[in-house]
């Protein structure tokens, strides 16, 4: 378990963020961490909204961990509406 920096973007936001996660986090955790900086802050909350995670243009399984997905430090994770 180690601190792991990622870049994060949420659909509808204006800027790329630095998002520190743990390499043992699931991608669902990563998505929640990225969204916490943006949804309800600069992008409206939508009750019941469903979010997907994209890495290198492909949607990823949000149960897989950062380590097992093979992400590199400062890789970009996009959070988009399903």
């Amino acid at each position, binding site marked *: 378990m180690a601190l792991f*920096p990622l*870049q994060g*973007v949420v659909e*509808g*936001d*204006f*800027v*790329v*963020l*630095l*998002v*520190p996660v743990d390499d043992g986090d699931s991608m669902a955790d990563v998505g929640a961490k990225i969204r*916490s*900086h943006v949804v*309800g*802050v*600069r*992008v*409206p909350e939508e009750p019941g909204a469903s979010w997907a995670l994209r890495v290198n243009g492909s949607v990823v399984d949000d149960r897989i961990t950062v380590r097992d997905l093979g992400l*590199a*430090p*400062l890789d*970009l994770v*996009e959070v988009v509406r399903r």
Partner: protein
Amino acid sequence: MPTLSRSEWYDLTRDMNWTPRYAREDDIWPEAQSRSFGIPASAWWTWDEPYKLTYREYVHNQVDKDAGVYAVNSVIARSKLFEGLDPGWRSAIVAHYGAIAIGEYLAALGESRMGRFGRAAAWRNMATFGTLDETRHGQIQAYFPYSALAKEPRLDWAHKTFHTNEWGAIAARSLFDDMFTANDAVSTAIQLTFTFETGFTNLQFLGMAADAMKVGDVDFSSLISSIQTDEARHAQQGEPTMKVLIDNGRADVAQRMIDHMFWRSWHIFALLTGLSMDYYTPLEYRQHSFKEFMHEWIIKQFLDQFRDLGLEAPWYWEEHFLPELDWYHHAIHLGVWFWRPTVWWNPDAGISPEERDWLEEKYPGWNDTFGRNWDVIIDNVRSGHIEATLPQTFPMVCNICQIPICTPSGHRAGKLQSPAPLVVDLDGRRYNFCSEPCKWIFETNTERFRGHLGIVDRFLSGLIQPATLEGALAYMGLSPEEMGTDADEYRWAFAAAGVEAR
């Protein structure tokens, strides 16, 4: 006293070029200080400045200028004019002084490098006047804010900024070091005097002077109008330098240098002038939008100059520069406001209902893009959740321009194909960029830039301790009293519904 008219003796006394016999040319003009680009000494001697003056004339003119401007300042200092200025306007000038004052002093170093290592006597003459000019500009833009410290303590940042690691200071130092402090004399003439001074400083110094006069800030207006008269003179070093390069078959050098520094200048000016013109200047006093001013002063006038010299518009002009005029500074403004504790002035949100109508008129689609982000911020302010309008993490920052990476805004505006940053992986380190031109600058000058650590790199490498937001603010030299807050105490958030501010 000379009895001849100036035109009869000027050329004789100015042209003090000779072939050295007792020292080697390469030792007098080392390539590191003054790149020759293979052009022989005698070719440089054709260097010819359009506006000629003598030292006697210089002193006479400058004494008159200083007497006038310092007189205005001493009268205004005794009045209540500063206290009565719009808070957003005050923020614009606090930002200006911090970003510019010590940079002017550094420019004196760049001018003095040309004064010693310029490859023609006429050029060294003009650069000596330029050194005096920039010394004047550093002094006067430190003195004016100094005289108002009792009214606005954060004008201390006119001196302090460049001695801190505040992110805007890192961005300004990065630009100015690249442009002149760590640049050879020939490159400085092209990148500082031509690209930056002839083009961009007119934006800040004349555009802002016009807005300042409307706002009633006669002190600032007379100051920066006066500064710009010096600029117009010493900026003329660029064209004769480029003519020597072009006449000797090195137009490629001039083109590449302009392409490089035009882009970097554009981004810093979008940060400084874009915010001031479109958000901090009170609506009733806005003469023009930032985009309109860019079109008038840069796109129209500068393009003509490129073409007169036989050069082309930079390679990124159509695909990257023109599209950014519609969105880039709006993104930077939102970012500066949201990350307001990280700056030394109070950002003016500039989004009252009337201002949003103006923004929509000048930038169609603003309400559907940036407006939607601001709507969420407004809701949080109205419901008393100010903490949700403040940052909990860093933005990613470009490794060339040192400004936050807002590619998602360009993508949303339909001007970029992807919201992703541009990336270069080099020897185990990832470099991130906000745009293709910034990435190009890195890739064509890798050895020059690869060792620099941006603010995010410093955080990730453990240089900022504690590794928290509080630690970062302290690292940036910002005490709680100095951190920016909203210029209008959030009154704009309650304006639309006629709701009482809490």
